[in-house]
């Protein structure tokens, strides 16, 4: 127990760091990954922005990013993180590789979700004179919204485990704390409390995601 009391301030600090990484990473992935996913979808459809070349090139880059083990990606984009944030240590710097991995991951999830929108519905919108922009914002994103929420939930959960890995090279956060005290110093109670905390957090995220997704699904 005395381990836990001693560590309380650091636990609080680590929680803040994890939440910072999640907030920055998820915001960037949601925006850029979302936009990228929409384009990947549009480039593949003959009656939308059909472009096999763009799909091949951008899709290829997404695949390359996704094939990196996260730890390696983190080291590889270290110089970029330094350029963007002025440092390679701390939660903000760690958000750079997190965002890059997240953008690639979420782009594919969004592309997949949009593919589930029935072709006929898109065609009906076109027949009524909708522009591609109308189709994206009034048809695709609205019709796919519950599966998009599930995708984002799944991204958030993956992020938590990515952010733990980011801790190893100086990102900080709860994962880092668990490794330093729980593993290196054999403080099993610290390990236990962080793991329990993470489990509860994931349950909460998943439960809210599923609930919202069901709530907005009128199909």
């Amino acid at each position, binding site marked *: 127990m005395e381990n836990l009391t001693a560590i309380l301030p650091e636990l609080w600090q680590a929680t803040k760091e994890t939440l910072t990484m999640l907030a920055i990473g998820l915001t960037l992935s949601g925006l850029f990954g979302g936009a990228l996913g929409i384009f990947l979808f549009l480039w593949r459809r003959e009656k939308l922005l059909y472009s096999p070349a763009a799909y091949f090139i951008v899709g290829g880059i997404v695949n390359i990013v996704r094939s990196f083990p996260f730890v390696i990606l983190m080291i590889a984009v270290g110089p970029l993180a330094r350029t963007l944030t002025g440092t390679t240590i701390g939660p903000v710097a760690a958000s750079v590789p997190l965002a890059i991995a997240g953008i690639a991951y979420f782009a594919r999830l969004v592309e997949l979700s949009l593919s589930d929108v029935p072709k006929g*519905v898109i*065609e*009906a919108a*076109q*027949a*009524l*004179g909708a522009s591609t922009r*109308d189709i994206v914002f*009034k048809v695709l994103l609205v019709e796919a919204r519950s599966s998009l929420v599930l995708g984002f939930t799944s991204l958030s959960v993956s992020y938590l485990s990515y952010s733990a890995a980011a801790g190893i090279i100086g990102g900080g956060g709860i994962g880092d704390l668990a490794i330093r005290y729980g593993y290196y110093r054999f403080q099993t109670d610290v390990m236990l409390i962080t793991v329990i905390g993470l489990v509860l957090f994931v349950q909460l995220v998943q439960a809210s995601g599923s609930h919202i997704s069901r709530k907005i699904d009128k*199909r």
Partner: protein
Amino acid sequence: MIRVESISKTYATREGPLHALRDVSFHVPQGKVYGLIGLSGAGKSTALRAINLLERPESGKILLENEDLLTKNVQELRVFRQKIGMIFQHFNLLSNRTVAQNIAFPLEIAGWEKRDINERVSEVLELVRIPDKANAYPASLSGGQKQRVAIARSIANHPQVLLADEPTSALDPLIKNDILACLADLNQRLGLTIVIAAHEMKVIRRLCHEVSLFKDGQVVEELDVVDGKIAPQSDFGKLFVEEF
């Protein structure tokens, strides 16, 4: 009002080129219900979808009030499409929008004011006789009601013509009559020109004034419907009438 002049459309398939339309021409007069009829795969649906360029023909002309749609750019085509309503066999409603929001969709993209949209939505809901369904989601409606919503959506922006692609083929027999009556009513009351692709005699009997009979991507005959009947001269036409 609509003049389709010798359009052709070929699809590349694994077994070689498929001639979906070969030199097809027909003329839809203002205020009439015009049927594109034939067996499945005859090209009637492709011909219908060529009118608003959902399928772009390789050659020929699509004249809507003497303007050739095939010469229009993307922007111009969108404006034309806003004046051409369309309904489908499987309704194609937006499932995460209410009935009222579905009907509002073409008005939103045409840039209507919110107040005008609400007014117009109530108007067309009355017109297709489902005023109590405004706030329902499509999933809670029957097939016939869904098609009524689709019809309401397609006529909301005061189109010059309504394209109907097998609108009754997915419906129960009694509901079919209902939807055909609804379309006939719109044609009579609003003078709405309708082009309908169908393979059932019932549609011809109850709704059409003139028809083109399709076979293998070609128009075999253009016929007037007299007293709900057509009197084809060709062998295929006679067979079609007998069998359906």
